């Protein structure tokens, strides 16, 4: 993964809090993706200003000891494959 990449949600994709369940949702034309807590936490940090390393650091500060450094870059890359972040 490029070290200077600053992931951001694709323009067609909105991150919303579901009014019924409180879960994070990715909303796009004709589709809703219900996110689990970890996925929501990662995608909220994909603001187009932070690099993946910075996102990892921020998550590590909130969740010390979690396997963030291994899992988060893989997750972001997978979400990019779906076209939801770029």
């Amino acid at each position, binding site marked *: 993964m490029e070290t200077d990449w600053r992931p951001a949600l694709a*323009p*067609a994709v*909105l991150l*919303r809090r*579901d*009014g*019924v369940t409180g879960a994070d*949702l990715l*909303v*796009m*034309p*004709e589709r*809703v993706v219900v996110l689990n807590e970890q996925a929501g936490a990662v995608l909220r940090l994909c603001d187009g200003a932070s690099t993946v390393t910075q996102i990892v650091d921020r998550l590590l500060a909130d969740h010390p000891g979690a396997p963030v450094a291994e899992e988060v870059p893989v997750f972001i890359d997978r979400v990019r*494959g*779906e*076209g939801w972040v770029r």
Partner: protein
Amino acid sequence: MTGLPRPWALLAELTHACPLRCPYCSNPVELVRRSAELTAADWARVFGEAAGLGVVHTHLSGGEPLLRPDLAEITASAVRTGLYTQLVTSGVGLTETRMAELLDAGLHSVQLSVQDADPVSSDRIGGRRSFPAKERAARLVVESGLPLGLNVVLHRHNLDSLDEIIALGLSWGVSRIELANTQYYGWAQLNRAALLPTREQLARAEPTLRRWRDRLAGSVEVIWVVPDYFEGIPKPCMGGWGSLSITVGPDGTALPCPAAYALPGLDPPSVRDRPLAWIWESSPAFNAYRGTAWLPEPCAGCPRREIDFGGCRCQAFAITGDAGRTDPACALSPDHHLIKELTEGGDPAAPAELVYRGPRRRRGAVGEVMVSAPPEQPIG
């Protein structure tokens, strides 16, 4: 209410008026008059109630929603309640000014219809010259930065152009293409003999679809709404009756599905009389075929009953006269022979002429010809 699903989508039919006269229009054969339409304030209340129930998406549809001069105001009210708001349009009337208004109102995405890849054929199927307006609409949407989806209803007269249709969508810059084989209710049922493709046409379309899907994987989504008359497997209409979606018609009639206007005895509620929560949770219409407890045999004992819920109620009614029977598209339905007779009758030459959508006399006999309806008002 426990155990009750929450709705995810609201189809808002803002008007049944439309400059196009597609012979497979999903609007009811008896169109709602313009004078009976909900106001923008009514719609604002409906959007608020829908969002409160959990609705995430709204589709501003018609007819042609651009015929509502207050469309930008309606859009803004949907966006304000937090709904992801999509315009579903023929493209006719989408000028630069109106696109700017809608963008300003916070519109999220646009779905544009096209009737065929070839302009002459597209105009012939739509019943008026509209292809240049569609081209312009596609350009304006893409330039605005909103995601553009293309919707194409497929039938005998355009299925052989599938390759060109997908290529057209890509040249217009779409991010999604919905290829919807005609569903035979309402207007399409009147025109079924003229619209049903042949099995050979569908067989030819299949490798084309597969090739494009492979090529576009990860970039452009290609949706295929199955030709259920031919597949022997019913579609889970609307993801199950009263389980995902609410349709509200121009006059406030609330239905579990846009084709359900035609079901006799359904007695659909209106958003003018009742809150949407009551309509969703308690109205007899939304509970009539909800879940699986009502299922007849052979559905009740079928392992697929939680997948397709007995298929489409409107189709069961259209074919058998009883909305409570198994969808005859299902190979296991005792009425399946009725569908087979329609798809296996040989019938190589296109028989009947197309009956274009237009105003229709109440109680007109099915099959009565109604042509040459001018658009209800000038647009653009």
